[in-house]
């Protein structure tokens, strides 16, 4: 068996490939649903109904889409420059920490100043955190995959220390959580009596902004060159290290903003369950979108549908809600294969 490059890429195939891949992933996962003794059709019907079946369900799904857009963008811009930032989870939490630091009463500003300040602080914290492994990569050639991954564990332990120690809210009846963000720092609701908050608008704007930046800015051009061929970019005079460091600031910043958005839009205070792995899921979101910032918005919505739908489906059927993780992980792998097949054809001899 070997692969033969396709001479011309058939556009409808390129667009259909990820959708087909997701269908294949869902077909594969139906084996597990059958094994658990439920009807496949009923399970998937319940899944989509649970995620999209009512106004409230849609608002919940969009609430979950919000952080996934931001962490997905964080992974997408970094991966485009071949900067393997797997530290989204840590940057998410350090962003939330920074917002907690200045948002719990330290700054007594009106909302129109405080909310932007919180997001800037979170973005800075996330970006600076990613700068550490990025510098180690550019200066000492230390592989950033492992360092960003390990930093996630370090940051989570640090947050654990903060919410059990110096930042513990004495009014929280002993629960390990920090003091709440003051009212001026909270994001408004988009729809009354739902949990959907203005963070979604910030996420959508970030998506469009990231798309415009990668498409039209000098930095966008540079990271495309670096991502395509680092040596070539270097030879043609592109300041590779500078481009990578800018990428790190933007990528880490986006993940940090995801933390602020969840903190100020949803939870209101820093806890250890602020993120159920949004940083890691962001990687899947980015890959499903083919690293396209606008595609990230769609794929974040799809992943949110799967997770929210699986939660409600598992309440009705005897299928564990871990099926959502299995579906998204399988979809990641099938989408990778499908994108390869748009560029190569398989020859069996």
């Amino acid at each position, binding site marked *: 068996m070997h692969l033969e490059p396709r001479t011309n890429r058939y556009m409808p195939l390129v667009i259909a490939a990820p959708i087909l891949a997701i269908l294949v992933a869902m077909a594969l996962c139906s084996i597990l649903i059958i094994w658990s003794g439920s009807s496949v059709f009923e399970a998937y019907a319940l899944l989509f109904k649970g995620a999209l079946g009512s106004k409230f369900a849609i608002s919940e799904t969009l609430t979950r889409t919000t952080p996934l857009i931001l962490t997905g963008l964080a992974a997408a811009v970094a991966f485009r420059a071949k900067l393997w930032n797997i530290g989204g989870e840590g940057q998410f939490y350090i962003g939330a920490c920074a917002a907690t630091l200045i948002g719990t009463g330290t700054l007594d500003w009106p909302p129109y100043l405080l909310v932007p300040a919180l997001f800037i602080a979170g973005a800075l914290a996330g970006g600076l955190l990613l700068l550490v492994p990025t510098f180690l990569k550019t200066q000492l050639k*230390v592989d950033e995959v492992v360092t960003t991954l390990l930093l996630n564990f370090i940051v989570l332990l640090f947050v654990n220390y903060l919410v059990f120690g110096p930042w513990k809210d004495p009014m929280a009846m002993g629960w390990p959580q920090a003091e709440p963000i003051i009212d001026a720092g909270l994001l408004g609701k988009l729809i009354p009596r739902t949990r959907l908050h203005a963070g979604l608008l910030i996420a959508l704007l970030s998506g469009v902004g990231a798309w415009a930046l990668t498409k039209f800015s000098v930095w966008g051009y540079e990271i495309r060159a670096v991502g395509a061929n680092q040596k070539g970019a270097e030879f043609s005079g592109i300041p590779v290290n500078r481009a990578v460091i800018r990428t790190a600031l933007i990528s880490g910043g986006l993940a940090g903003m995801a933390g602020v958005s969840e903190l100020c839009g949803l939870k209101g205070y820093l806890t250890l369950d602020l993120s159920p792995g949004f940083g890691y899921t962001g990687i899947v979101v980015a890959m499903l979108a083919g690293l396209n910032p606008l595609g990230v918005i769609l794929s974040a919505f799809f992943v949110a549908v799967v997770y929210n739908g699986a939660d409600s489906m598992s309440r009705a059927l005897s299928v564990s809600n*871990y099926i959502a993780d299995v579906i998204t992980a399988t979809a990641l792998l099938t989408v990778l294969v499908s994108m390869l097949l748009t560029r190569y054809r398989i020859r069996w001899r």
Partner: protein
Amino acid sequence: MPDLLDMILTTGFWVATLRMATPLIFGTLGELVCERSGVLNLGIEGIMTVGSMAGWMWVYQGGSLWGGVLFAAFVGALFGLLHSLLTVYLGLSQHVTGLGITMLASALCYFVFRMLLPNVTTPPKIVPFEPFALPLLSKIPVIGDTIFVQSPLTWLALLLVIFISYTLFATPLGLAVRMVGENPLAAEAQGINVHLLRTGAVVFGSALMAVGGTYLTLSAFDAFYIGMVNGRGWICVALVVFASWKPGKALLGTILFATFDALQMRVQQQARTAIPYQFYLMAPYVMSILALIIMSRRAAYPKALLIPFRRGER
């Protein structure tokens, strides 16, 4: 610092060290074999997780302990096979595929665990491995009955270091594995099937990772918890760089690592209030990053690592 010396000189300390080192030895050796053949396997964290569950479940369902180890190895090998199909034959990005394998393996593992045991609140327990006393050596007074009495899996790990070191550097098979990791084109010119050999290395390495995982549930503890591997896989990836891709150094690295880890635990127990415990728990991750930084200058990666081999392309 006399306290510190006393601590290190107790045999109990070294027993704890070897116990902590064992899963890392398996994982590091497994990753090392994969990377020597030119394939980065970031599936390690998930494969260790799935191994810890598979072995435990085998024993929980009434199988033998060694059967559990074999079953874990088999399941790990299956995920290794998937990783090599995607990265070796299809040439997909080893970074992204590996992360995908980790996500898929852990998700499947938790799903299966929940489906097989839907109504448990406290994790059920099994009877783990009894420590195995080496004949003669364990009769040495004072140290013999502690240092030379270890879990059989620990002895297996130590034997594997010798076996893999010998195979890699003293057999034609080992030479071929290193060759496809350094210069696959030259290997192919010698009539070596690059894809097959890489697949073999990844499958074997993944089986080892899974055995490292199952050591946690069959020997170190007696139950399976969600999230119990807790970054050990990523630490192994760092340790492979620290070991310069050599099995002997990998053993040294894991022991050194486990020594510091055991030491921080003892210090933590003694000086309870001085530093919050979370900072002690950070130590293994900080040490792994430091190990990477220290070795970064001298790191001689296998030259074909991360580069897919496609016949007819160069």
